[in-house]
């Protein structure tokens, strides 16, 4: 599938701000089943953009906005060719052994409730892959995905579990927290999900930013799990960044006021249409 993506982020600053440092993590990398055809970042401010690789192998850019200004807008735009790999990841950039991904973070804390949930799906036989699938199914039953931004909350593993309803990021946190508790390395992925272009070219939807999880099963390697949709990754998914939790994959980090995002991810064959913005506001 060929997916056209546009991701716009606007960071608001106090009016008159100067020398605002910004990190963006907005450039996907190619791997088996995902090939970046073209990709470009565009800023509303003149900056020197130097690419760095972060500790997880994600491409990021840190720069500073001279100002004075009250906002920064970044547009990432490009086209990605994808193929279905039944969720199995090959050729990804790996900077850590899997065991690093057993690490807890604030967002993926194994609270007693999360532990109880994880234990409830524990299988008796030693089959990591079966375990992970069982976890995905159980989670899908337990927590419903709500419409809205990918990080619209509830966001922590525990909050997602308690609410029984969460954003895709919250569901990914719960999945990783539970898998880690069961001794299975798991990590957080940010990216995009494009809908199929319908044959008649109508009502395709615009696609969204989305978060899901990957977990490690010996013999298979890293496998993607989207518990919100109860499936492993397909050609509709474009993987942007990997880290221990949503904080680590944040597409933009700065020290300003609120952030707004608008994302579209479209099947390139679909007719052009005006992207209806999906917005998200962080504090």
């Amino acid at each position, binding site marked *: 599938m060929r997916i056209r993506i546009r991701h716009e982020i606007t960071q608001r600053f106090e009016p008159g701000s100067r020398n605002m440092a910004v990190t963006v993590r907005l450039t996907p990398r190619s791997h088996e089943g995902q090939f970046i055809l073209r990709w470009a970042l565009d800023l509303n401010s003149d900056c020197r953009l130097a690419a760095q690789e972060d500790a*997880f192998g994600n491409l990021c850019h840190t720069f500073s906005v001279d100002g004075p200004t009250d906002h920064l807008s970044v547009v990432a735009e490009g086209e990605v060719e994808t193929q279905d790999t039944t969720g199995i990841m090959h050729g990804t950039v790996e900077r850590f052994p899997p*065991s690093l991904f057993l690490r*807890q973070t604030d967002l993926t804390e194994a609270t007693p409730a999360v532990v109880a949930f994880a234990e409830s799906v524990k299988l008796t036989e030693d089959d990591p892959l079966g375990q992970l699938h069982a976890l995905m199914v159980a989670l899908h039953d337990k927590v419903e995905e709500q419409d809205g931004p990918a990080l619209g909350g509830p966001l922590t593993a525990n909050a997602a579990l308690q609410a029984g309803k969460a954003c895709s990021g919250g569901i990914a946190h719960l999945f990783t927290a539970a898998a880690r508790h069961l001794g299975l390395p798991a990590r957080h992925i940010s990216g995009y999900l494009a809908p199929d272009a319908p044959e008649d070219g109508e009502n395709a939807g615009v696609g969204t930013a989305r978060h899901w999880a990957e977990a490690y099963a010996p013999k298979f390697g890293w496998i993607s799990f989207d518990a919100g949709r109860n499936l492993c990754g397909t050609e509709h998914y474009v993987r942007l960044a990997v880290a221990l939790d949503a904080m680590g994959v944040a597409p933009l980090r*700065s020290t300003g006021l609120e952030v707004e995002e608008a994302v579209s991810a479209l099947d390139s064959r679909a007719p052009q249409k005006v992207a209806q913005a999906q917005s998200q506001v962080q504090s």
Partner: protein
Amino acid sequence: MPHAFDEMSSADGSVRPAYETLQRWLASVPQDVLDHRRKEAEFIFRRIGITFAVYGEQNSQERLIPFDMVPRIITKDEWATLSKGLEQRVKALNMYIRDVYTKREVLKAGVVPENLVYQNPAFRPEMNGQRVPHDLYVHIAGIDIVRTDPDTFYVLEDNARTPSGVSYMLENREIMLRLFPELFSMHKVAPVDKYGDDLLATLRSLAPHGGHEPNVAILTPGIYNSAYYEHSFLADKLGVDLVEGRDLFVKDDVVYMRTTEGPKRVDVIYRRLDDDFLDPLMFRRDSQLGVPGLMSAYRAGNVTLTNAVGTGVADDKAVYSYMPDIIRFYLGEEPLLPNVPTWRCREPDHLKYVLEHLPELVVKEVHGSGGYGMLVGPASDKAQIEKFRAKLVADPANFIAQPTLALSTCPTMVEKGVAPRHVDLRPFILSGSDKVRIVPGGLTRVAMKEGSLVVNSSQGGGTKDTWVLDA
């Protein structure tokens, strides 16, 4: 508990040679003169404002650490042994941290278990694969040493993050020189006041680029930090700027400070700020104390942070127990300074032993510091032990245990005259790109309460001037 070794008086009552002059002097000076000088010392401390804050106490913003006037004496030979051992230890710490963030050979070889690194809260995944200037991580180390007999110095703890206390080492000496000049004329005491120069030379040697005179700054969390006095003290001694996060900014991966003459480039930052607060774009995003973009400049190799980020992975009490193996692994040498035998409660057979012997052990939290959250078995009653047992069973991996050591004692001024009190020693080891520098001595901490083994200032411990004799 066995009888403690006293550094002045041997068991048979004779005075050890290094202390002979001091002992005679102590015996000859009338008590009221000593009392008077003690008051004078306290007055000077208050006046200069050497104070510290104790966490969790209200209205205690400015408290004095008790200063004991009787110096602690270490012979030239003892110091030679100690300093060699310290240098070896810090060298291994540096190699270990570098390895953990790059090649991970120590993990592959199974010397240290993976989860002790990867599940360690002080491990910084963000530092993975990053080269730091000169491949050095722990530029300023404080290694806590205890002594149990004339020949044995144990390492009790490694401090590889931002060890504090050096200002007391320097101020204690200043005050002693002022109060007891006659005592110095009777001894050849190795000076400590070149610590400032040594630290500056070390920091400069760590600059990422040669070429221009490196600009060094000390980064403080601000005046409300408990060690603020020390931060401003050091800035004064070094003649460098004491900056807060808001004084710095990053442009194109270069760090600048805001001055009245415009931006000025900063090459080396001696930061007295925890990792978590350094850069809101990388760590805690609510940090107001750090510098946005600092880590990116660091990653680009344009600034040196001392100590490096993520050094905490080497200094918790669980990693401590592996230090002898770590020294052997990297240096192929036997440790010159032994560890205190340590049971890791994360290991079931160790835990079993610890639970069976609680009344005789000291149990500490792996990430604890300041003498908080620990159990001193022999000094605790049954209820306290049982309460601690419950904590230990609930989360064994969070604890280690050690035998209750009979820490050495030194003569100390107490209410009525001079009496032995338990002490430890924190020497400061500076690792520059050119060489290792250790000022002879360090900070001696003393438990002012009779029989107490807890020397931490937050628990009522005091300090002493530490003399390394030059002859």
